[in-house]
Every structure is written in C-alpha cells, then in structure tokens.
C-alpha cells in the first residue's frame, strides 16, 4: 500500500483508494435491510412503486387516494390493477371514473385497452375510437397518434387519409415521434396531404432526434440514394445507419 501513497499521479491515487471504497459500498447498498422509505403522496410515484416495484403498500395507498376522489389516483390505481392482470374489470371502472372526472390520460388508457384488448376485454375498435377522440380533443398527443392510425386504416370508422394526417399533425406537434414519422410518410407519399419532400425531411429529422429507428433509417436510405430532395452523401448515410443500430436498442417508446 505505501507504494500507492507515493504515487506521483494524484488522480490515479484517488482512483485506487476509491476502488477499495467502491467494493465496500457495493456490499453496503446490497445488504442494507432498512425499511422501505416512507411512501410518497404523488399518485404517479405510487404507481411506479405499486406496478414495477410490486409494492402492495403502495397499491393500498393508491387505493385510498383513489377512493378519496383524486382523478389522477383513480387513473393510476386503475392502470396498476390492469397491469397486474388480476382485477381488469375493476381497473376499467377506475379508469372510466377518472376519465369522467376530466382526466384525458385515463381516456387515452381506455382507448389503448379497447384497441389491443386485455383479459376479459375483447378488442373493440369503435370503443377505442370513441375514447381516443375524446382524449385527443382534450389535447392528448398520444391519443391523437392512435386516432391517426385508426383513420389511416379504418379501425372503427371508414378510412380517411385526410383525417389521419390531421391527427398525426396534432400528435406530431405534441412531440410524439411515431406521429412525426407517420406524418412524414404522408408528406412523402401525398397521402391525405399535398406531397412535400421538405416537410417530410423536417419531420423525419425531428423523429430521428427522438430516437425513432425507422425515421433514422429512412434518412440513412435517403442519403444513400439521394431521395427526398437530399443529396447523395455517403458520410451522412453511414452516420444515420450506425445511429439506426444504436436507436434500436432504445427506440422512442410508443405512446
């Protein structure tokens, strides 16, 4: 050990000392059996603890808050019940109460449930469309994205490319990468909007900044082939191709 102390490099010395402390800290944090922290009051924090954290005490706290009337707690409690898969119908009831209380996110969650279905809840495109429409009109960007998808494909109503583009635009403005990508596609193809390569590139770039892998790959291909009014640029193409690989490990989450 004295040799470390005589080191001429203070940085290395510090690092060597810390290595010892580090190993200890690892043990310390791993074996500290302190009681869980006092539960927070914030329903969103409680939702994390009750869902991914599997903490029943947090779920009980959330239930109490939901019963106390907070729309946010009702939504969070409903979501945890559905995620746990044991009380899906109860979860739906809480979501409906929250949505009725003006919580757009709760309506959005109802839309997603009816869209994909869940245990005891068959998919119902018309119901999904209803909830997405209400939430999107209240300004929910995620709901606007799914509304765009519904109008594009005719889920729950006859397809309408113009209506799809309109909702993709609302969602894209709210920062939803998947909507920015879909709207860019629409501008590229002239699908419900007038064809506009520059606008498509702007939207692909915006989605790419949000780690949307398919938008990044579209730019890689465009720079390879000189598409969308972009020049052929091998350096840019290679950059975007490598970024595609990277983004695929953590794609922009679907709303």
């Amino acid at each position, binding site marked *: 050990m004295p040799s470390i102390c005589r080191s001429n490099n203070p940085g290395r010395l510090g690092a060597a000392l810390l290595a010892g402390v580090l190993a200890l800290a690892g043990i310390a*944090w791993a074996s500290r059996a302190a009681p869980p922290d006092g539960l927070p009051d914030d329903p969103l924090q409680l939702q994390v603890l009750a869902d991914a*954290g599997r903490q029943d005490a947090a779920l009980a706290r959330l239930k109490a808050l939901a019963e106390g009337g907070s729309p946010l707690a009702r939504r969070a409690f409903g979501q945890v019940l559905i995620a746990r898969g044991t009380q899906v119908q109860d979860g739906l009831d809480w979501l409906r109460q929250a949505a009725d209380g003006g919580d757009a996110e709760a309506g959005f969650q109802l839309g997603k449930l009816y869209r994909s279905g869940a245990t005891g809840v068959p998919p119902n495109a018309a119901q999904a469309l209803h909830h997405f429409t209400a939430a999107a009109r209240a300004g929910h960007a995620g709901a606007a994205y799914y509304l765009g998808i519904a109008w594009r494909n005719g889920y729950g109503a006859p397809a309408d490319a113009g209506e799809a583009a309109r909702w993709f635009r609302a969602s894209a403005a709210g920062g939803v990468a998947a909507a920015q990508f*879909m709207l860019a596609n629409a501008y590229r193809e002239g699908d419900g909007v007038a064809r506009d390569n520059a606008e498509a590139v702007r939207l692909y770039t915006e989605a790419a900044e949000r780690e949307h892998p398919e938008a990044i790959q579209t730019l890689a291909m465009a720079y390879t082939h000189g598409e969308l009014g972009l020049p052929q640029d091998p350096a840019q193409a290679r950059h975007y191709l490598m970024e595609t690989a990277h983004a695929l490990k953590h794609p922009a989450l679907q709303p």
Partner: protein
Amino acid sequence: MTASRHELTTACLIASALLAGCGSDSSTATRVPTGTTATLALLETTDLHTNVVSYDYFKLAEDKSLGFERTATLIAQARQEFPNTLLLDNGDTIQGTALSDYQATVSPLSCSQTLAMYKVMNAAGYEGGGIGNHEFNYGLPFLSQVTGNRFNVAGMAEPSAQPTCKGPDFPLVLANVNSVKSAQPLFQPYAIIAKTVTATGPDGKAVTGTVKVGIIGFTPPAIMSWDKRWLDGKVYTVGVKETAEKYIPEMRAKGADLVVVISHGGLDDSTYSPSMENGSYHLSKVAGVDAMLIGHSHQIFPNATSTVAQFNLPGVDKTAGTVNGVPTVMANYWGKHLGVIKFDLTYNGKTWAIDKTKTVVQARSAQNADKTYVAVTPSIAAAIASEHQATIDYVKTPVGSTDFEMSSFFADVGDPGAIELVNQAQADYVARYVAANLPQYAALPVLSVSAPFKSGFAGGTDYTDVAQGNMAINNAADLYLYPNTVYAVKVTGADIRNWLETAAKRFNQINPALSTQQELISSFPGYNFDMFTSPDIRYEIDVTQPVGSRIVNLQYKGIAIDPAKEFIVATNNYRASGGGSFPGLDGSKTLYASPDTNRDVLIQYIKTVKTVTRAANGADRSWHFTKVTTAGPVVFHSAPGKLALAQAAGIAGITQLQADDGSGKSLALYAIDLSK
C-alpha cells in the same frame, strides 16, 4: 446480515486507514487557508459504447472518426492545460461493438477479469462513472459481475453468496434504479470523491487541498421497457427529480463541496413525470446541483449552432453551456468528443465556492478543423491488443458454408439466391417464438418477406455477393445490410395482396406493343421490393398492368388465397412500423417486436443448418412474371458478365446486350424475354 455488517466494518477500517495514511482525510486535507483558489476541470466522456480502438469490426477496417484511443489524447491535452482535472464517464459504456458482444456473450469474461473498456478507463485514471441504459443490455448478472457489484435481486444468489468480481477501479453511481426485492438502490446512488488539488494560497504560494466532489447518477426510466426481458420483476426505476431531492442534501451533509449530476439523458421540458425518459432538464432545477454531465442523445452540448430541439428550449443556453443556469455538457458519442466544465474555486473557510463568472463549458472534438483527427494515444490499443484481436478472429470465424454463390444480381427478375436464407431464418425464428409464447396464434401459418437491399443503385459492386465456401459473421452484413430487428405482423390474405402490389411498384408498366426498348425497373427502391421465397406461396407479377393491379394468381398452398384468412408474416421493424408506407403496415399489426436483429437471427440460422445449399436455401421462387410477348426489348441493368449466375438460378430468357451500359457505374445492360 451479521456477517456482512462485520465485513463492512472491517473493510471501512481498512479504507479509513488508507485515507489517513495518504493524508487525504477530510479533517486534515481541507485545512487550506481561507481565500485559497483552485481551478478544477470536470472531464466528461459519454456513450463510448466500447469503442476503444478506432476500428469498425464489421468492415474489419480502421475508422478514425471514433474510438477512445483518440479521446485519451484529448484527455491528456486537458490535463496539460488545467492544474486539476476530474475524469468522469456518463454511461452507455460497456455495450455497442463486436468487442463488447465478444466479452459478454461469445467468450464471456471470467469473474477475475476486467472488461476491456474498463481496463483502458482504469489506465486513463477515471475517478467515477454513471450507468446508462445500455449497461442493462446484457442482463443483470453480467452487469453485476463486470462492475464488481453484488446485486440483491430476484433471480440471483443472496449477495453474501456471490463472489465479488473485478470491476473498474472507480466508483459507479446510480440513484434511480431499485431492487424489487429490497426496495434499495441497485448501485451506490452517489459517491463523494475526495479530490486532492493543487491550489494557490492567499499569499500566492502553492498549497495542496482537497475538494470533495459528490457524484450522483441517473439512467432513463424507460430501461423498464427497453430491457424488459432482463428487468421486469427484478428492478424498478424511481423518478429522477424526487431521487435527486432526496440524496443531494445527504451528499451536502456528508461534506460535498460540489455536486455533479451524471444524468444519462437529454433535455425535455415537458411536464415532469417519474417515468419520463430524458429528465435532465428537471434535474437542473433541483436545488444544490453545481454541474450536469449528460448523455444518451448522442449530441454535442454546448454547441452554438445546434438546431436540435432539446438545445433550443427556454432556459437552455446552447452557447454558454447552461441549463437553467447549471453548467452542463454532453460529449457526443463513441469518444468523438470530450466534455469540459472548468470551475474556478475559492475556499471560504467552510467550503469551496464556485466563481460562476469564470466557469467555462466546452465539448472538444477529436476532429481537427482541417477534418483530420487527433493522434491516438498508443498505450490504449496496446492495453487491449489481445481482446481486439480475439474479436477480429471471432468476426472472421466461419459459421457455416454455402455450396453456391449467393448474389442479388438477378433478384429483381426472380433469383431468390440471396433472399431465401434470410426468409427461412426469419420464419423459423418467428414460428418458434409464436409456438412458445403466443399459443393463441399457433394455428396461423408463418410466412416471411425480405428484399434485395443491395440492388445496384450505386453501381456494379452494390450487390450482395457471398462467394461459395465458408461463411463468416461479416458475410451476414452482406446478406442483410440494415441493422433491423425481426418483427412479426398479423395480416390477412387481402393485406398480403396489398403488400405485394406495393412491392411490385419496383417495375415500370410495360407496353407489349411497343417495338422500342423499355426499362423494366422503376425508381421505386430495391429495399422496398419485398418478396416471399417459399413453396407455400405463389404469385405472378404482371408488369403490363398499372400499379395496384399487378399481382395475379396469388395462391397459398396451391389454392387462391382467402382475403380474410389470417397469416403471420416475419419482416423487420422498418417495414412493420410504417417504413415505405405500405398499406396497413404502421405498427398497428405488429404481433411481436423482437429484440433480436435480423442479422443475428440469420447467423444463428446458418450455424444451425451449417451447410447452405442452392437446392434447400436458394431455389424456391414464389413469384414469376406473367408471361407476355413484347414487340421490343425489355431491359434492366446489373453487373457485367454475370449471366452464368442467372442460368444457375434457373432464370430463363436473360441475355446480356452490352457489357457497359454507358452509365459509368460498372453496369451492363441485360434484356429479359418475358415470354419465357
């Protein structure tokens, strides 16, 4: 419990003795005169992704634009410039190249070995680091091993029964990921580094002091989605803001003069939520944060000319490098930049205070103004020479062999030779996944599509061309150009028809009556020319018809396809999520978004079949052109002198008209007789 507490106490004594013995214990070391000044530069690397050497393992070639061996030169320059530096890493460090895959999965590191990336970081004198999202990509046991942390999580032995493996020689901190089992942080949430600094006393003489730098780490809560297969039920994330609010006062109480947030996330000013991905903007508003080292977005900050949305938010000064007044740096990725935050400090009798008027924030590039790159630091590559070579050997290792030349020269006119193997690998992978995990869909047929990604756009060498003989891992990149992941979609027979109609835009509409020459291939890109290559599905493409009416005699197992019948089709994330704007494909039909790349799935498949043959893996043509006699020639372009390959693939009616088509791109002009 008793045992580990004892172990801890003993070890603490040793550590204290070390600190005291070296004279950097807080009670003595901070005893510098009031008014002493010091300059301390924080140096940040981020998103290194195990790019140690300036090398591309798939191309097996040098790539000077990346690599820690050049960042190390920037670090050395900064140490020349500043009297005191503290080198910290932001995370996304241990995953991202063939080298990292090699050490994690191909030839897994033993408990007593140090990861190549950490080896060079130890050598460079790092004093702390954060944990990014990619650290979780290889699962918790691997992360535990290589970081030298014993995790108390479900699925792993009790910490007391785990060996303490070799980690880096510096502390890694992460505050917002907890174990489900213990409800405690997985890593130490923060560390306080007693940094010995050379300073100037009020009398102008040099003195030595200690600055206590507290570092606290955060990773994006979205790891719970991205690495769900490793993390679900084992760990959970807590919100970054409330976590910072909890620990930073603790750090101050323990004497931290400076608090440095190492946040692996970018800036997002939308309403705070505990699960938001990029929480750094909200972290900047937590009381007591002196500096932020950020990352994850692969961007440069500060950067006065940045058009990136996150650096043009209110409160963000992209020239000075501050976020809501907090000095902040993001050092790009793959070692392309080094982040610098220079603080001028004055000891006020109690703590080191920052003279905010003198703070400098920079992201320094490894690329010089003349587009050349700074020189490498030779000791870096030397330190991991054997790991580097082993990775190259691995990439070149044969995984199987092929009895025919697999090429895409004639894929546009029907040769499935470079595509069928990809389709077989995808279909096999998806079918096995569905059987194991989606029993409700077990009755649906699994089909697969892929496209000739390399189809001559850039000229005669822009084709897939794998020679007969051994196939190595780097050949997979030739057979599958894009870094996609396998996705499966659930579609109907009608959807398949629409899909193929879109793909058939690859062709111009041919007028059989024209006696002049007609080009067969349109401007519709080859990467969108999806095709089946299976005996189960058959169709014709009638190029005399307009777009949308070209798919003829579409059959499944010998009978006309039922428009309402459901199928599972294996494809990639690009197509399944809306790439190419195919009808109905926009993510809403995705049944399975796999984490595995098409390339890796292909490599695994080659390892399984071992010998790839034309008969079994390159002869199933699902489609033909509808036969038609044309008055004039129908032509297309491909590499010259390849006619024998078309004949070997059984493509009839092809002739080479001109060995040089005049394009200057090493392409020949071929004709196809559509009546054959």
